[in-house]
């Protein structure tokens, strides 16, 4: 599991101890460790580089302010990711509400069945065929909805277990598996032969 392997339990414990002693170095260690992963996970939901940075920043500030509430019952990574993902969903909800008030199109539509503008299924398959894997995968990921992208990121890319993913996203394990299953099917459909056996 990638996330857990990056920080040994000893180092994480050390960082948490430093924080409990009121030393900022602890936060620096945790920030160094989790920033990239958090950014990627949040980016799957908000789909905007700068906004993802702001969301992660806010999430760290929240964690800093609420640290006394962290009792160590779950892993710090699970707690931190949960804060960041909540912050990400809150952010897109706020943006959607504002856009609705202003009569604009929503930022995140339900893209499960309707490919986003300018992207069709053939584009993804063709790109994969021509070896442009990055474009093909990015295109295919865009066709998933934010919830599906979040489980793909946490479970498949970052290597959280299904239970941990469920805890982070505050949903049932079955929901995670179902979202992931249909995401894989969708990716298979979009990316053609490469993942035919999925």
């Amino acid at each position, binding site marked *: 599991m990638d996330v857990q392997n990056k920080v040994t339990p000893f180092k994480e414990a050390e960082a948490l101890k430093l924080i409990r002693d009121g030393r900022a170095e602890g936060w620096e260690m945790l*920030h160094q460790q989790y*920033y990239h992963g958090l950014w990627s996970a949040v980016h799957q939901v908000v789909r905007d580089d700068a906004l993802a940075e702001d969301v992660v920043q806010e999430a760290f500030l929240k964690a800093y302010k609420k640290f006394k509430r962290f009792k160590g019952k779950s892993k710090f990574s699970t707690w931190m990711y949960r804060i960041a993902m909540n912050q990400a969903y809150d952010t897109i909800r706020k943006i959607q509400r504002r856009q609705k008030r202003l009569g604009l199109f929503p930022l995140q539509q339900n893209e499960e069945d309707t490919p986003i503008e300018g992207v069709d299924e053939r584009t993804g398959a063709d790109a994969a065929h021509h070896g442009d894997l990055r474009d093909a995968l990015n295109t295919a990921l865009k066709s998933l909805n934010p919830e599906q992208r979040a489980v793909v990121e946490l479970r498949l890319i970052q290597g959280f277990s299904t239970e941990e993913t469920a805890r982070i996203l505050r949903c049932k394990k079955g929901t995670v*598996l179902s979202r992931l299953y249909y995401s894989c099917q969708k990716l298979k459909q979009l990316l053609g032969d490469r993942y035919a056996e999925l």
Partner: protein
Amino acid sequence: MPNYNEFEKKLVETDRIPRPDAAQTESALLQLRMDLKQVSEMKKRSRFDQTTAWTRLQSEISEPMSVSSWRALSYFATAVAAIVVTVAFFFSTGSQNSQPGLPTISGAEPGIYATPFYSEEAKAEVIWAEGYRYIPANYTY
């Protein structure tokens, strides 16, 4: 209905293989995970700088008092000042409206005193002074 138990089993199997070097693998799920990770790594490398983000965060958490704290403190101070002014105002007007005590009467002779009371008949506050010498009606200065 998909068999999620089977799917979870496949997922766990691909968890156990940390980072296979071989690009070709028989498991499509593992292949997908590898490809997604590769894309994710490329995105991270091309995009951002954790150090800058940390500096930004550090400036916020190391401040002795954040902007919001100062704002909260200023609201509190304003509220306290408003209460003090209001209380002071009530005290000052209250002391003016309160019933006066015995008026000071100075006389050449001791034993002069006054009793204030409210006259329902006259609808007025009356100060009844006693102790003065009787002055006849025909007295002239």
